[in-house]
């Protein structure tokens, strides 16, 4: 299983890293927060951690720590435009509910 990126998402990650000037890939984190409990965080990775799980999808290195992986296994990441905004969207088969404000989720 693991995680996959759409063409658009991969393109955006690459251009982000190019602009930043350094970085091996991205880290996907799931943090506890909010009214429904969990939120996604995407960060650039300069140095992977020893316990990181590593996925190569569409030529992009994605690193996930084992604790976060339980929540996002099977997730597809897309990069989309909605009206005046753009950003990454997560299609996560594990999600059971989202909080009212739409910013966090439960599994």
């Amino acid at each position: 299983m693991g995680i996959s990126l759409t063409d658009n998402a991969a393109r955006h990650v690459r251009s982000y890293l190019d602009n930043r000037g350094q970085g091996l890939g991205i880290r996907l984190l799931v943090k506890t927060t909010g009214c429904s409990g969990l939120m996604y965080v995407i960060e650039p990775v300069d140095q992977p951690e020893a316990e990181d799980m590593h996925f190569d999808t569409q030529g992009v290195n994605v690193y996930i720590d084992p604790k976060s992986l339980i929540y996002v296994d099977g997730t597809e990441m897309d990069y989309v435009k909605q009206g005046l905004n753009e950003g990454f969207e997560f299609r996560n088969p594990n999600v059971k509910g989202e909080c009212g404000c739409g910013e966090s989720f439960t599994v």
Partner: protein
Amino acid sequence: MALIQITEPGQAVDPHQRKRAAGIDLGTTNSLIASVREGQTETLQDVVGNSLLPSVVHYGADKNGASEITVGAAALAKATTDPMNTIASAKRLLGRGLAELAGTEAAEQYAFVPVQEGMVQLQTAAGSTSPVQVSAEILKTLAQRGSETLGGELDGVVITVPAYFDDAQRQATRDAAELAGLQVLRLLNEPTAAAVAYGLDSGDEGLTVIYDLGGGTFDVSLLRLSRGVFEVLATGGNASLGGDDFDHRLMSLMRAKLTPDLVLSPSLNRRLLMQARFCKETLSTEATVNFELTEGDLHLTGSISRAEFEDAIADLVDETIRSARRVMRDAGLGEEAVDQVVLVGGATRVPLVRAKVESYFGKAPLTHIDPDRVVALGAAMQADVLVGNKPDAEMLLLDVLPLSLGLETMGGLVEKLIARNTPIPVQRAQEFTTFKDGQSAMLIHVMQGEREQVADCRSLARFELKGIPAMVAGAAKIRVVFQVDADGLLSVSASETGTGVTAAVVVKPSYGLSDQEITQMLKSSFAHAQEDAEARMLLEARLDAEQLTEALRSALAQDGEALLSDEVRLGLFQGIDQLAQVAGGSDVALIKAETEKLSQASDPFAALRMDQEVRRALAGHTLDDVLPVESS
């Protein structure tokens, strides 16, 4: 589900710590508030679902003589029955003096208080008021809508101003926000705000013209959009030309058609003006419109064709095209270089405006974001970034000074220190000298405008530099420094540098309000009784202290070990703890003093960090010809 961005490690914002930020379009005719919520930017509505708040304030008195202030649609409804006490289009009066307004419609409509100097005051049933106070009432109403919708007090707002607003008008807008108790993150130029909304929507790059014809102001700006950078190349316009002028032209036309000799009562006059506005809107889609006016036995009817209307406003529209041509020339570019033209402002719905813009630029203008809302939407996006909800945002706005700044010199001439369209922030200094032996003071007269004669420019401030040591004529060196900040606001200081004797003053525009006046207004205003004002001062002092400790803590975590000795670092941590302790108490003066102390102590660290930022900016992007970077 909200959209997620990539963030540097440790920078992701917890959704429930998101700050409440809003963009406010303080318009001549209507005002709006917008915010970014759940990743969507939207204008906020009142309880009955209206986004637009008419920029109208009614000043009444109840039967006990206590003042009653109504804002918005309810105030507008009183415009015909109580025209003198119903203040509309106050934006046109902001930062303006009596003499400048002589002969305008506003002078006919309202009772001005006869004051010698400074900004105009209006006489109402609830006492005298100023355009700043009227604007503050509108801002308060919008801010309340914001905090009700967003679930708490606003952490910060971006307020838009016409790009062509001069310094006095900008300062007046800031003063109004302060009176309304708002934390202003930035004053943003309206066309730049519109460009942000369009640019972030389409992702299009290239040269963009924003043609913004609002109720009372006209702006035209040329921007270059590339990878999140909005760089204003040139701006121009007319701070007192707008859709209101179309209404007045149409009203004169209607009046002439009805019965040219009839003298209309103030209330009938207002009704005719409202009819004119309605006719203007109808003529955007219809070829002719009928109107009628009744009062008592009087019953008058007439009709106007679109051709007649267009004939009446053609010169005003041509005036806007001339401004656009000048902006293109200032940027040194031809119309053919423009990639897209965007229409902003309700008055751009008039077909003649669209036709003339299209014919001048040779391309169909874009209108797909509601021209009434686009400015507020762009301001909300900027507010969201500035307040810190998007630490990774690539957006950067580089704006310019709209009107040249200078000083009066001998013979009533203006010497320009900073030319219009200079990118801000900017600082320029010029040296002057004394012209009499033993001259101990010098009058400094700050001007804004493009013309050569003092009489043709706007006087912003006058102040005297005193205490110049006695010297022969021409020996003293008076250095005058103009600093324009990122809000486009000017501060001026002057000093005698030749002998090391220094006297400096910072001025506020003569049409603005002094800090004491603002404090006074705050104290006397109904919503801020004495205890309120004190409570607010404590709150503000605590906020400042909190902001400083928070910023310093995160700075120390990031760069403390790399940039500071253990000793200095420890000292700053102790300072943070001490300030946090004091801020828990209620001694405002003590909190302020300790904040200032810590701020000064951390100054060198902040400077080191800023130097580091500059070095990092170009790191990893070096060419062969690069020089070694100095290490500090």
